[in-house]
């Protein structure tokens, strides 16, 4: 699996433009984002399958602190006649602050049926269960949430 990264064309922007042109190409991208207080970021991910048997897995993880704003635009496209592709685009957002804003539009355009394409988005605060557990061990709420955020960022699924 080749590993790719998002590029950073200018401040506040991250872009991924993935074109799988070679048969059997397999690409994995994991991008971890931490938006500090008041930070804004536009993320654009485009994955186009142009060759048979290609595989792409793109995972974007983001932790948002107070008033951070994340805009995520995704597009996965499988062209006609491009068979046996496997593509997954995932966005996981952990809201650690207040006043955050997330706008996500992961699109899929599939023109061939011999594929397995999926995408998923999840947006939430650290779970009550996890926070409670840590707090019951003496950590303050803020500390607990930060710890959870750190774990979230570190773990590669």
């Amino acid at each position, binding site marked *: 699996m080749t590993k790719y990264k998002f590029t950073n064309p200018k401040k506040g922007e991250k872009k991924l433009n993935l074109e799988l042109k070679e048969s059997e190409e397999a690409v994995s991208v994991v991008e971890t984002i931490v938006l500090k207080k008041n930070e804004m970021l536009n993320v654009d991910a485009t994955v186009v399958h142009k060759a048979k048997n290609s595989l792409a897995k793109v995972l974007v993880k983001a932790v948002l602190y107070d008033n951070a704003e994340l805009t995520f635009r995704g597009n996965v496209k499988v062209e006609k006649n491009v068979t046996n592709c496997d593509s997954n685009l995932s966005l996981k957002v952990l809201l650690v602050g207040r006043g955050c804003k997330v*706008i996500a539009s*992961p699109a*899929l355009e599939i023109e061939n*049926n011999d594929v397995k394409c999926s*995408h998923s*988005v999840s947006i939430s605060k650290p779970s009550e269960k996890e926070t409670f557990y840590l707090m019951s061990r003496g950590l303050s709420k803020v500390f607990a949430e930060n710890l959870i955020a750190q774990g979230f960022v570190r773990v590669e699924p």
Partner: protein
Amino acid sequence: MVNLNLDNYKYGFSYPEEYVFKSKKGLNEDIVREISAIKDEPLWMRKFRLNALDVFKSLPLPNWGGDLSGINFDNIYYYLKPARTQVKKWEDLPKDIKKTYDRIGIPEAEQKYLAGVKAQYESEIVYGSLLSDLEKCGVIFLSMDEGLKKYPKLVKEYLGKAIPSTDNKFAALNSCVWSGGSFIYIPKNVKVALPLQAYFRINAKNMGQFERTLIIADEGSFVSYLEGCTASIYSTDSLHSAVVEIFVKKNARVRYTTVQNWSKNVYNLVTKRAFVYQDGVMEWVDGNLGSKITMKYPAVYLLEEGAKGIILSMVFAGKNQHQDAGGKVVHLANNTSSQIISKSISKNGGRSSFRGLVKIAKTSENCKSNVVCDALILDKNSRSDTYPLMDIKGENPQISHEALVGRINEEQLFYLTSRGIPKQEAVSMLVNGFIEPIAKEFPMEYAMELNSLISLEMEGGVG
């Protein structure tokens, strides 16, 4: 398709059947005035229509969704059309439609009615008594035209409040030339046991070009409404643009089920929206089988705490069809929840697109939303798109969204065939299994017919 009651006169509904008319195509102020005059409408309604006409002219066509360039607005009868929009002779009915009728098991008499060949369908006394029972409870269930005549204040209070003419070009068009549709009011704490069917109110002419439906469920009430028909309705009208507005008051619950199977020459552009108040529940169950292009996104606006919206959408896109459907939920209050489940099937070059919106306003805390959209593409000429949008601003949201697109699972197919089930039937079973979570929400008759229809479509061969 069961139990059509069209005998207006028997049950005392008055609806002017025939007029002296000149068939006029196209849309202009004169025609709009004429429509209002013939219906003998109050002044405010005439103004409503005329305003909408201006809005219609000023709004552009949407630059997304289906390809609407084929609609010629000047070549359409907006009203005063010839009585028959269906075939004049049974023999003229397209073969593939007859085939579906036979397949679903519709008795010939009913088939002829659906084809418009027979003007009336024999009704059953039971519906007469159902209606009178409802009246005793204070339930109002009338055609929109009658509703306007008998309850003008109530209509004025709600009409256009969920979907104003300015909402989109087709809402404006409907607001301008609407005719037919249902007006329903359920009083406080009344729970209507049997689903209300649109077919009570519809006669051949009314079959849906620009229906306008308004449902008001007062506090604590419950009603389930059914619209449409699994049997393909043949219509020479190429444009169908309905508007449905629903108000679900505190603790009330409304379920609106549609099965759309217009013939494949129809552009079906519908705007449906529900406003839900405290602890109210709105359920849209939407089945899209027919039409050339459908653009329809049932929407739920969750306006007060505890409100809940559920949108179940099932879509089948076959040859030359583009189904652009989905759902919208807007959370405007704390502790509201929503769920959208969409299952679509594309076959024979068909295209299905899911368009969804989940919006959580800045001031809405603790809201939950879950969206699942799965698409099955059955052959390599067909296509499926997913265009979801999540706009999340409130505190402590719990949002999840999943989409899966692919072909029939080979492993599952092998399992079924290894048990002696021939491939075609196995594929049918898998397709029916795929839509099962939504199909089971339809009333049984629809569900069975849906299954038969799917099997029939599958017989066309699997790529």
